[in-house]
């Protein structure tokens, strides 16, 4: 009797069964192996990967280097035109204000967030820490350059994304040179370091843990050498010339030139007054006995800056016009986008020796566009108390303690503050900035 032996490994069986069945088994094994290895969540969490040094949850050299260049999706743009460039991150245009990008890993304090910031067009870039979401800047803390490069300021965003400033330090930088900005995140507080010089320490921190990000308001900027690292080797020294007056930082400029502090000796011994900080922008201003006086007679607006960038305050002064110059005037400049430019700022001032008070805004070319005025008929021979109360979106004008206009709209929410005098000897006394409104 013939015995028929089945050839299980015939070409037909190989084609129909053995190869596909082997592939099914391989596929299942691969899925079992690859799914947890390749597609399990990799965002560091409090339990899994608290970052205390650069090796814990990020590449050895810190974040944002080779990963950004070839794999930009580790950075998540929230708004703006962001792109990878040379191992860093670049914001390419000056358009729009709220341009942010977040790195998609959560970090636990303590750590230092460092980046070299090189402005390309516009100035105003900065660093964010403690971001609670990859979709918005809510509850994060921001440290950035002021738009004219004359200051650094810091503060936090609330739940709704509204920014509240915590402080400010005047600086001098070469705006096109790379600036190394470091935020030391200690969990409950943070320090700011610029080019190795401590700018401010022990600031209250809204949220320590969270994502880090970059900000580029109306700024084209290149961020390079972006790192989250341990605090080892990143120490703070005494802050440079920063004093707090009721929450607003007012200080002598931190002189910084290409990353090297050249003048950090200007620490003020006595608490400064507002008038200690003035900086003449136009005209000739004389400071004497707690008052400041503009003396040039040309029919134009002369301005001195108070060296303060602010929002939500009451600014008041006793103003004396020039009886010898019937059309002299004086008042305030505020919400100026640039510290030494009138363009974009709002002005409130007495007109024609106190016959009227006028308000409005300087346009982009620096020409004043009046928005309104009121007849006052004040005596030019007397001093008058002029005040403005500036809120989030509007402001009021007070003359001799009486509110004469209420709820005038504001085009912007913050800016530089200064005094303005029109022709003649105009004197400002008791200049007061009250943050309580």
């Amino acid at each position, binding site marked *: 009797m013939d015995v028929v032996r089945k050839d299980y490994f015939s070409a037909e069986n190989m084609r129909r069964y053995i190869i596909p069945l082997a592939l099914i088994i391989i596929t299942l094994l691969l899925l079992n192996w690859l799914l947890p290895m390749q597609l399990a*969540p990799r965002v560091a969490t409090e339990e899994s990967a608290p970052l205390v040094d650069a090796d814990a949850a990020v590449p050895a050299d810190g974040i944002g280097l080779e990963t950004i260049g070839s794999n930009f999706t580790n950075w998540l743009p929230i708004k703006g035109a962001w792109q990878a460039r040379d191992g860093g991150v670049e914001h390419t245009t000056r358009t729009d204000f709220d341009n942010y990008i977040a790195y998609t890993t959560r970090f636990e304090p303590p750590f230092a967030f460092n980046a070299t910031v090189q402005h390309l067009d516009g100035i105003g870039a900065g660093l964010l820490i403690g971001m609670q979401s990859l979709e918005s800047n809510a509850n994060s803390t921001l440290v950035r350059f002021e738009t004219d490069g004359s200051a650094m300021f810091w503060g936090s965003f609330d739940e709704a994304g509204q920014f509240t400033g915590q402080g400010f330090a005047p600086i001098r930088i070469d705006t096109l040179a790379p600036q190394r900005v470091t935020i030391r995140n200690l969990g409950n507080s943070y320090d700011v370091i610029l080019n190795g010089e401590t700018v401010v320490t022990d600031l209250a921190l809204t949220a320590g843990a969270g994502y880090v990000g970059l900000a580029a308001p109306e700024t084209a900027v290149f961020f390079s050498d972006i790192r989250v690292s341990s605090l080892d080797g990143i120490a703070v020294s005494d802050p440079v010339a920063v004093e707090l007056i009721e929450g607003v930082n007012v200080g002598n400029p931190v002189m910084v030139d290409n990353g090297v502090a050249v003048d950090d000796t200007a620490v003020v011994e006595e608490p400064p007054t507002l008038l200690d900080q003035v900086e003449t922008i136009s005209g000739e201003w004389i400071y004497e006995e707690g008052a400041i006086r503009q003396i040039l007679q040309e029919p134009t607006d002369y301005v001195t800056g108070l060296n303060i960038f602010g929002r939500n305050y009451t600014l008041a002064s006793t103003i004396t016009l020039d009886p010898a110059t019937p059309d002299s005037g004086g008042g305030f400049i505020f919400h100026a986008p640039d510290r030494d430019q009138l363009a974009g700022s709002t002005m409130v001032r007495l007109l024609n020796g106190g016959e009227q008070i006028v308000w409005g805004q300087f346009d982009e070319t620096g020409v004043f566009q009046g928005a309104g005025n009121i007849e006052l008929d004040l005596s030019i021979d007397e001093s008058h108390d002029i005040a403005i109360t500036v809120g989030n979106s509007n402001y009021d004008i007070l003359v001799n303690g009486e509110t004469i206009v209420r709820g005038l709209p504001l085009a912007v929410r913050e800016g530089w503050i200064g005094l303005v005098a029109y022709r003649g000897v105009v004197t400002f006394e008791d200049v007061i900035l009250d943050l309580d409104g």
Partner: protein
Amino acid sequence: MTTAQLESAETPNTILSRLRDASFIHPLFAFLITRTIVLLGGYLGEIAIPGITGEGLYHVAPNNVFLDIWARWDSGFYLEIVNEGYKFIPDQISSVAFFPLYPLLVKLTSLITGNVLFASIIVSNLSLLGGLIFLYKLAELEFDADTAQRTVYYIAAFPTAFFFSAVYTESTYLLVSVAAVYFARRKLWAWATLFALLTSVTRIIGLGIWGIVGLEWLRTHGWTLTTIYRADAWRNLWQGLRTDWHNLAIILTAPLGLLTHMRFLNKTFGDPIAFWTIQSAWEREDLGFIRIIARDLTPVFSQNFGTGDIWWHVILDLSAFFFAFIAAFFIWRRLGAGYAIYTLLGILLPANSGSGSISRYILVLFPLFLMLGYWGKNRQLHNALIVGFSCLLGILTTIFVNWIFVA
């Protein structure tokens, strides 16, 4: 020349000869022509039309338009899965809703390309080409070569076919689902099971392909849904079970792919059906497809077409729904119950909770395109479909790349 030499010369089974085969040439041309439309439409649309910007409207590669335009809307989820792994945030829209085959293929390809976005586009387009080849073969099997040729052109030029080239799972799903059915029709059950298994880890509707493969096995053994009442059909089935049980056993392993994914989800997030649980975050109302369609259809008639103040993509989705719904009955008659049920499930399941994106969902319901290919023997209809589809494909591509929701 010997007989053996003659046979060898007449049936050269080389790669070159396969590349010259109609089942490769026609899909390749359909691929090249339609991808040219899509690429030109996408590129010109992105550079010529001022795009909208805003929160969440990301640009993965803003300095490379050729790559950037393929990542819009849900693409972000796939890229997030590849880069950061799955995320499951209960009650919030999370990437766990998406299935793993496409991200895995992208991840593996990115190990070669070094760029995730580029890898995604490579996977999408190669999958499309593969899918078209299998679809051609399937259409040839069901109808003839002419129908097969029309079928691949229709699906590749379909108005929403730009999704095949985008960072979306459509083309991968098309490839594995058509391959599974093709092998089932060839009675190569183990191959069919392999692709059905892959289908089940590509999209949830992939389980429907398992159903088609199963129905095909039943049909092979004389049991169909239309003969369910006949005793001889059951006798045939019993005979089939006795003689061909091993193939049925192989077919039954197809859901192991989905089960593997569910095991992973359970281990990672403690919820084996997290992809289903998270659906509530999309705020879809489970009203049933009749109420949903009625709800979405009613405002269409009160919209002002003159001013253009209309929900055009809703109209697109509803048109797609009705086209698929009506065509399913013709599919039942001409191609069988399995194809028809799969088509109906492909539209009715999503339509139970919303009509949104149906114009994209029907893109992978290949029985529709088999039927269109069959109808396309009418010359006027064929011309209308080719011109109409191609124009709409270009237009919708420009809309898509500009961050305007299409489907």
